[in-house]
């Protein structure tokens, strides 16, 4: 009897061990440490910026000489700080690294995921939309859906890029050596090799904090605390003295003002229209084509998502009409019926591979959205190619401008053509992904992804084939999920490519190649 009990206990311990041994710390950010940059781009201050007309538009006076008393006092406090870092301080240095832009991008994606929640119906069946004037809600502002997130990321990245061009301009104008170069006794955490005035890290911290605080107003305190830690980490890392940081912060604050001024008048505040306007857009499409998209939810949402996002000011495309795709096949036409037959066939015989692709690229409610997914991929490539902060900023700025332009173009098509979704045209059709609250043609995933892949393929030519394959997979994922016709996806891919070519042309002429 005792023997049996012992056996039972041992078997059970084994089972628990199997379960528990699978437990591990799951990654909550990209696990990379400070690295040697593949190049410093000493001429980066001459690159063409987006919001600024000239690199010295933001005026930064020459810093004190490194022999001055004020500098030596700053240097001494860096030396004291670096000599006795606490565990938390060391952790902060390790976390922020010498390419902190990637961390701010991660923070932006996290906030997108946190706020990407669609408002549910009120008890009486009506819906209340987030209001920037009363961000606490309910529902809280913003609803960080894909167009909103694409825009937040574009402003973030453009401000970072212009701020760093400015920083590079002054870095290589004033050439102030870094603390660890002035005093051998200071150990740098990462020896970036950049002139330290003004601090590039501080530009990124201040610009990112201010842009994201405007985009996610309820997160001001959280973002301020992040920026504070980041700025302190620059001292703890032995990378900058206080006056480097002050100058960098100033650039970041100024460039963020310019970016937010553009954001304030780009048309986004009119994108979510009242119902009469939304109805007139729908009626115009019906008059033009004889079809219209309807929301199929219960209770019915009175207005689709941001019907006038297609009217938001584009970054690099002169007019949205010039990238508008051709009309989709009419419901009932042979082309339409062929793609409907494909959808039914997929739903009937969904393979594990198709299910996985649908879920892999879904990036739906509660996640960082498709623009966020491509930012995550850009982050991984930036680390792999050891980009310096300026090159990183350039990559994200062009990619996110192209993604936002793609979103604007896609939304223009969505509400111009107002095409019904598969659940509307196919009676009884069931899907494995939720159908979003906007028309079908063209697919947002396809357009966003193709634009992102086109820019990444330009920046990282060796990765171009992979990026394009990912975009195609992302496009098809919506067909596997049952929420788009193949023509939505295929036309979206072409549209994204076309939109991004405008951004690539700008990038090719900015002086960085």
């Amino acid at each position: 009897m005792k023997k049996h009990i012992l056996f039972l206990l041992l078997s059970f311990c084994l089972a628990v061990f199997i379960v528990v041994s699978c437990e591990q710390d799951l990654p909550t950010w990209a696990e990379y440490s400070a690295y040697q940059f593949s190049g410093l781009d000493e001429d980066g201050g001459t690159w063409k910026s987006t919001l600024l007309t000239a690199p010295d538009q933001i005026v930064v006076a020459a810093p004190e000489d490194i022999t001055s008393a004020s500098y030596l006092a700053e240097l001494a406090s860096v030396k004291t700080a670096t000599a006795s870092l606490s565990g938390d301080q060391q952790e902060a240095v390790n976390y922020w690294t010498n390419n902190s832009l990637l961390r701010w991008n991660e923070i932006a994606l996290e906030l997108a995921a946190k706020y990407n929640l669609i408002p549910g119906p009120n008890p009486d069946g009506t819906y209340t939309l987030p209001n920037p004037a009363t961000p606490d809600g309910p529902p809280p502002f913003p609803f960080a859906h894909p167009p909103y997130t694409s825009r937040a990321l574009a402003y973030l990245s453009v401000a970072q890029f212009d701020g760093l061009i400015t920083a590079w301009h002054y870095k290589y104008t004033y050439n102030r050596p870094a603390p660890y170069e002035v005093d051998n006794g200071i150990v740098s955490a990462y020896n970036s090799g950049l002139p330290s005035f003004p601090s590039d890290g501080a530009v990124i911290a201040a610009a990112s904090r201010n842009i994201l605080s405007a985009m996610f107003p309820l997160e001001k305190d959280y973002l301020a605390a992040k920026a504070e830690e980041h700025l302190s980490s620059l001292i703890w890392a032995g990378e900058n003295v206080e006056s480097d940081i002050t100058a960098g912060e100033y650039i970041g604050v100024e460039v963020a003002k310019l970016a937010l001024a553009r954001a304030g008048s780009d048309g986004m505040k009119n994108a979510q229209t009242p119902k009469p306007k939304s109805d007139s857009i729908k009626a115009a499409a019906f008059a033009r084509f004889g079809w219209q998209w309807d929301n199929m939810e219960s209770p019915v949402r009175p207005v689709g998502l941001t019907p006038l996002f297609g009217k938001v000011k584009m970054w690099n495309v002169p007019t949205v009409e010039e990238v508008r795709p051709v009309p989709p096949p009419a419901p009932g036409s042979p082309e339409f019926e062929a793609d409907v037959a494909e959808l039914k066939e997929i739903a009937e015989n969904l393979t594990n591979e198709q299910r996985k692709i649908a879920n892999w690229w879904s990036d739906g409610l509660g996640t960082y959205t498709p623009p966020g997914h491509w930012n995550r991929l850009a982050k991984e490539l930036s680390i792999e190619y050891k980009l310096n902060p300026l090159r990183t900023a350039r990559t994200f700025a062009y990619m996110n401008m192209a993604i936002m332009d793609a979103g604007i173009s896609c939304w223009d098509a969505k509400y111009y053509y107002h095409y019904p979704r598969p659940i509307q045209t196919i009676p009884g059709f069931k899907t494995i992904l939720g159908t979003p609250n906007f028309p079908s043609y063209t697919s947002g995933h396809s357009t966003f992804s193709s634009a992102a892949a086109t820019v990444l393929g330009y920046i990282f030519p060796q990765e171009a084939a992979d990026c394009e394959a990912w975009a195609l997979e992302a496009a098809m994922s919506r067909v596997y999920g049952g929420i788009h016709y193949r023509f939505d996806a295929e036309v979206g891919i072409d549209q994204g490519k076309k939109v991004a070519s405008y951004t690539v042309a700008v990038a090719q002429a900015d002086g960085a190649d």
Partner: protein
Amino acid sequence: MIKNLTNYSLVILGILFFFSNIKILPAQTPSDAIMMKKGELCLALIYDYGSWDQYWEGATLRGNENIGTLTRTSLNPMIAAGITDKIGVLIALPYISTKSSGGQMAGVNGFQDINLAVKAEILNQKLGKGKLALLATGAFATPATNYLSDYMPYSLGLGAPEGTLRGILQYKLDFGLYARVSLAHLWRGLTEVERDYYYNNGSYYTTLMDVPNAWNYNGVVGIWLLDESLKVEANYLAMTSTSGDDVRKYNMGQPTNKMDFGQVGGSAQYYFGESKGLGLLVYYSQMIQGRNMGKFTNLGLGLTYQFKVIK
């Protein structure tokens, strides 16, 4: 002797209450206090119909017209065997189907988790006008198919390996009335999902989700009637996850959620004929509180057949 035979099929009941929930707790060990004799076998097949039209989003109970009524039916074949008079084993593999009356999301169906349980009697002795029994069970479960756990509320289960350790204490009066309590801890591993980013009070860059561990409490009062042919029970069952996040507003749940519930139920089991080898089981249960769960009502119907294979 006969009673020992028939009683063991009640083991099945403890398992059922778990299999019937939206969130399956695989291999929940038998929670009664009865042992089979060496060489006895019990086969069971139970049909369970579970449904809800309201769910707890965090602690708030709400409806959702895009789900309407969610139904979850399962067919649970099980085999239990007495290895010795003091040790029994059980194996089960439920087949589950889910669907909803509202919205356009596709339901799923398939085999869920393979469940193995071992149960041992540690103590069984006369005390006053009855008998006191102490038992322990250990169980292990793991997905039998590649069903997607990250498809709430339609997913078949949590998609993670799970180990359970349970202690059971029962006092039974000689005339047939009894009371039983049990306490279990559930260790859950990771479930692999089909995306490598998710939000769980912060970003996670991985395809793995940590399924919270849980405590499980069970209290039962029951009685034997009609010359020990009929058994009637009332029970309360509760589960509390030790960690996990809440379902966010108007958002889908995910396996990382802190899922809790309290449930009341009743059951009856009748044994036919003189040998009493064949049994018919009916039960009903209703969740009365919860967190990040559908508010399930379950109705079950089952057949059990018990016989001696080794003399």
